[in-house]
């Protein structure tokens, strides 16, 4: 068990390291460096900057050092909580991101919950009533759900609500709570808005999980222990829910690791379409404005969030699945 957790931790660290390299590459890729754009900004406001001053700025920011030293410096600064300054907003990156990261995490979490709430009953129904009309309908919807990328779904849902109800489903808060401090009322308001994007985001994952659960449950239902339970006179509902479903549910936890990166990815683009106050629209804006410190930090934090989520699901799996717990 400890070996398993240790292995997971090592992989998580490797992932974080790779993501940090990529984020650093994203910051470095555009031509010119921080000082070039800073000077351009000063020039635009009418301040003259001499060659010497520019050199001094470069030394001050460590830009004259080789790349690996710059990378080390960047990581070191981040460990102290200094993520750099957003060029476009003229404010520290963390301040700009604010609680958007939390909302992104909430959205992804809500999508996972929705996926489960929908997938478990549908999967059980489809397996128990295999080849019934309901099974076919759900299979068909599932295929569509898998094929339609979430941003297209968001677009269509947005159009339909606008065309038929005259309401816009964009945003995560009502206007009166938009800039209000966190309170119970604001959280409730968030919950009222969160379910639509969470549902849109969760569709593809739901379709996938229904297929997995259906296949697993079908395998389990044919096993002799189910026949035994039935022969002993257990009610049908109990027979199904108590044993085979519990076994078939295992992949739900283990697939979080795979679905989470997928959900975070999807949440970015869905947020842009629905203009939700998550990091999605911010990332797009930063990339278009070439505000690379902000963009790189967002990519890094998103990756970090995904890694932590995956790690939690791995540990949950240890807790739920005795086969892993007892493994040497």
């Amino acid at each position, binding site marked *: 068990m400890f070996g398993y957790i240790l292995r997971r931790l090592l992989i998580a660290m490797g992932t974080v390291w790779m993501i940090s390299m990529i984020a650093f590459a994203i910051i470095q890729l555009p031509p010119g460096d921080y000082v070039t754009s800073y000077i351009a900004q000063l020039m635009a406001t009418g301040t003259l900057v001499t060659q010497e001053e520019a050199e001094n700025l470069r030394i001050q920011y460590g830009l004259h050092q080789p790349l690996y030293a710059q990378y080390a410096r960047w990581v070191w600064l981040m460990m102290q909580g200094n993520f750099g300054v957003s060029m476009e907003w003229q404010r520290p990156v963390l301040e700009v991101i604010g609680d958007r990261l939390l909302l992104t995490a909430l959205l992804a979490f809500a999508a996972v919950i929705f996926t489960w709430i929908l997938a478990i009953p549908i999967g059980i129904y489809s397996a128990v009533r295999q080849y019934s009309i309901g099974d076919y309908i759900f299979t068909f919807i599932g295929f569509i759900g898998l094929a339609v990328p979430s*941003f297209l779904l968001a*677009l269509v849902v947005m159009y339909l609500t606008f065309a038929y109800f005259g309401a816009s489903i964009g945003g995560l808060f009502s206007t009166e709570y938009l800039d209000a401090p966190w309170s119970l009322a604001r959280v409730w308001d968030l919950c009222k808005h969160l379910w639509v994007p969470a549902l849109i985001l969760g569709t593809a994952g739901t379709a996938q999980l229904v297929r997995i659960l259906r296949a697993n449950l079908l395998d389990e239902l044919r096993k002799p222990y189910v026949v035994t339970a039935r022969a002993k006179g257990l009610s049908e509902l109990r027979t199904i829910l108590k044993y085979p479903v519990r076994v078939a549910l295992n992949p739900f936890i283990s697939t979080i690791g795979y679905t989470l990166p997928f959900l975070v990815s999807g949440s970015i683009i869905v947020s842009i379409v629905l203009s939700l106050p998550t990091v999605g629209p911010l990332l797009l804006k930063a990339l278009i404005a070439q505000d690379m410190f902000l963009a790189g930090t967002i990519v890094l934090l998103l990756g970090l969030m995904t890694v932590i989520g995956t790690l939690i699901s791995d540990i949950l799996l240890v807790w739920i699945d005795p086969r892993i717990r007892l493994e040497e």
Partner: protein
Amino acid sequence: MAKYAPVRGVEEPRAVDATDVGERLYVASQWQLMWWRFRKHRLAMAAGAVVALFYLVAIGADFVATTDPSLSDARRSLMPPQRIYLFEGWRFRPHVYAVTGKRDLRTFKRVYTTDPSKKIPVQFFARGFSYTFLGLFPTDRHLLGVGEGYEAAQTLFMLGTDVQGRDLWSRLLFATRISMSIGLVGVALSLFLGILLGGLSGYYGGFVDGLIQRFIEILRSIPTIPLWMGLAAALPRDWSILQIYFAITIIISLVGWTELARVVRGRFLALREEDFIVSARLVGCSQMRIIFVHMVPSFLSHIIAATTLALPAMIISETSLSFLGLGLRPPAVSWGVLLQQAQNVQTVALSPWLMLPAIPVIIAVLAFNFLGDGLRDAADPYGQ
């Protein structure tokens, strides 16, 4: 006594007739068995036809298009799709009504009114803008067009127009060409990486395998869209369409290869201990010969299936990136570039036909999925 002990291969060749199913199964080649199994999968057959149709359209985009996709006209801005009337009285004579546009002076929107008295005939194989068919011979014939004396660019808008007055139908066809081909190029790259790394992993096993598997695991746990967005946004602004096109395919296939590598590795591991591989090794075949002459042909079908299943992800990725404005840029047209115009709800509410490019995306993705499922089932014709 051949009557009692028929030996395989020594037996006299017999004419195989359709009723003798057992005999046919007995002598069929592996690919024939796969084809028979695939044919039983009706949905996959239909999906295969749809995919073929998409590629035909992609190849002959300029033949099927009615107007030059980059021809803009401010007087035709955001015109709704035209209805095509098939009959005139009782006779089959397809036509559209002439449309005139005027600016509403109160809302400043262009309003279009149809004039039922002016009928414009729609014909097959009509003359239109000139192009070189398949890049071989110049022509101006198109699958659909308007009758002699009219110009399609002025009169025929089957799916309406965009903000700049460009014909959506023609643009959609040219977009099909780019979107479908970007999937192929991306998959080819992924295939190369996947076979190379998956093959190394499966053939050598041990430490190499562990290293590559951990690397794949790490790659798969990174959220892709923000990563792609970051890399795509870093592409220089002054690159040509072709450069951007290849850069985007490379970015997309950077992650896409992992699934293919997994399939290849699995096959390698399964085959490594098979009798025919062991005997090939004992006979003294070189490693290259074992891999390419003995192993690859026996899992080629699996690779084809996995490749087909990897294509829709490529198409969706390109569409997403272009939709965000970070992928291909105009004047290149892909499904994502077209959908970019449908980004905000106001535009979509006023001119819903701008969402039409979503339909081919969904159909293509579904078709590739069904086809891939069918191929995967057929890839192992000996099971069950």
